[in-house]
């Protein structure tokens, strides 16, 4: 269980390191505008490769400022993260519900056909609490 969490933490840590290291090491210092994603500068570039090229279409809507643009990017990330969180939350809740139902039915025999092995090994603290709680419930009921 802790091994699992440790691997997850390591994965996220590695991603964070990959993002932070270029900043921390100042890899963008040689540039006029370090770490720009600068879509606006796009035009310059093509004009330099092909001086007579002119963009023939412009965006229907353009965020009026960098702030609005980053707000919309944040919205996009938030929408995605929200759906992902909903998915995993729902799964976890369902699994707990199933487990509780299973352990209420009898003590705990054939309940939980296959989610058990993976779920057990990967269960977070809350999950462990859930099982303990339902076990307690059956206990009192039995007594």
């Amino acid at each position: 269980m802790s091994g699992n969490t440790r691997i997850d933490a390591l994965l996220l840590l590695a991603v964070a390191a990959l993002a932070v290291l270029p900043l921390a090491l100042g890899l963008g210092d040689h540039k006029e505008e370090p770490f720009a994603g600068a879509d606006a500068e796009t035009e310059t570039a093509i004009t330099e490769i092909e001086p007579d090229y002119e963009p023939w279409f412009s965006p229907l809507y353009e965020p009026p400022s960098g702030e609005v643009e980053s707000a919309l990017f944040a919205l996009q990330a938030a929408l995605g993260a929200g759906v992902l969180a909903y998915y995993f939350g729902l799964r976890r809740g369902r699994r707990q519900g199933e487990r509780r139902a299973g352990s209420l039915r009898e003590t705990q025999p054939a309940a939980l056909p296959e989610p058990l092995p993976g779920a057990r090994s990967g269960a977070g603290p809350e999950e462990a609490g859930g099982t303990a709680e339902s076990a307690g419930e059956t206990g009192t009921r039995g007594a």
Partner: protein
Amino acid sequence: MVPVSQETGQGASTIHEVLERICPVMHIAEGFLPPAHAVTWGAASAPFIVHGVRRLTREVREHPGSTLLLGASGAFTFVLSALKLPSVTGSCSHPTGTGLGAILFRPPMMAVLGTITLLFQALLLAHGGLTTLGANAFSMAIAGPWAGYALYRLLRRSGAPLMAAVFSGAFAADLSTYCVTSAQLALAFPDPVSGFWGALGKFGSIFAFTQIPLAVSEGLLTVFVMRLLVQSSRGELTRLGVLVSGGRAGQRKASGSGAVA
């Protein structure tokens, strides 16, 4: 006829800088592919997207239970393509997040989900564009997912651990998206001296540099989400053929992610 930019004179001394400006955040900007190219790429993408829509509706009809996981795959693409991350070259780019859905639901689904993401960014963020939607969809929603899926299948078939295959698949999906983008740019703006191949060589080598660390990040994040899925959605993953059997998956997971981490 003054071109759009006022600062044409001072910028971009090296190809490297030029390139980062053309396509600093992966997608080709609005209006920056000549009309003939835009139409051609649109025509090339259309059948894939239509096919994807068909597969998607069939999947949802036959397995209503998988709608949620489909939504989650789309959401993953949404999150990752909103994450502009700094890279070693000193500029920012973003991952694509298409590898996960391609591995779970096969690439045709991602043709749809990826295009939806691109459309959102083109309409609301002025990032990418409607005229370049076909080209961008071809690189991010079609070529990337297929490349990632192909590598994933190849590795799985040769007995690689699940998480190692997932990492490589996501990595390949990300990187090949960029490779296709540079090919598209090289076709549209060939080098005056060395032509398409010269331009492709320059574009490709420089792009790869920025994108490799991001592709690694994408691989790691995809493994992270896949690990969560293995814990939470075992049944679904088995139905989709990602997990072969309940018992061995645990071991595979452990060894695979160990190798990755």
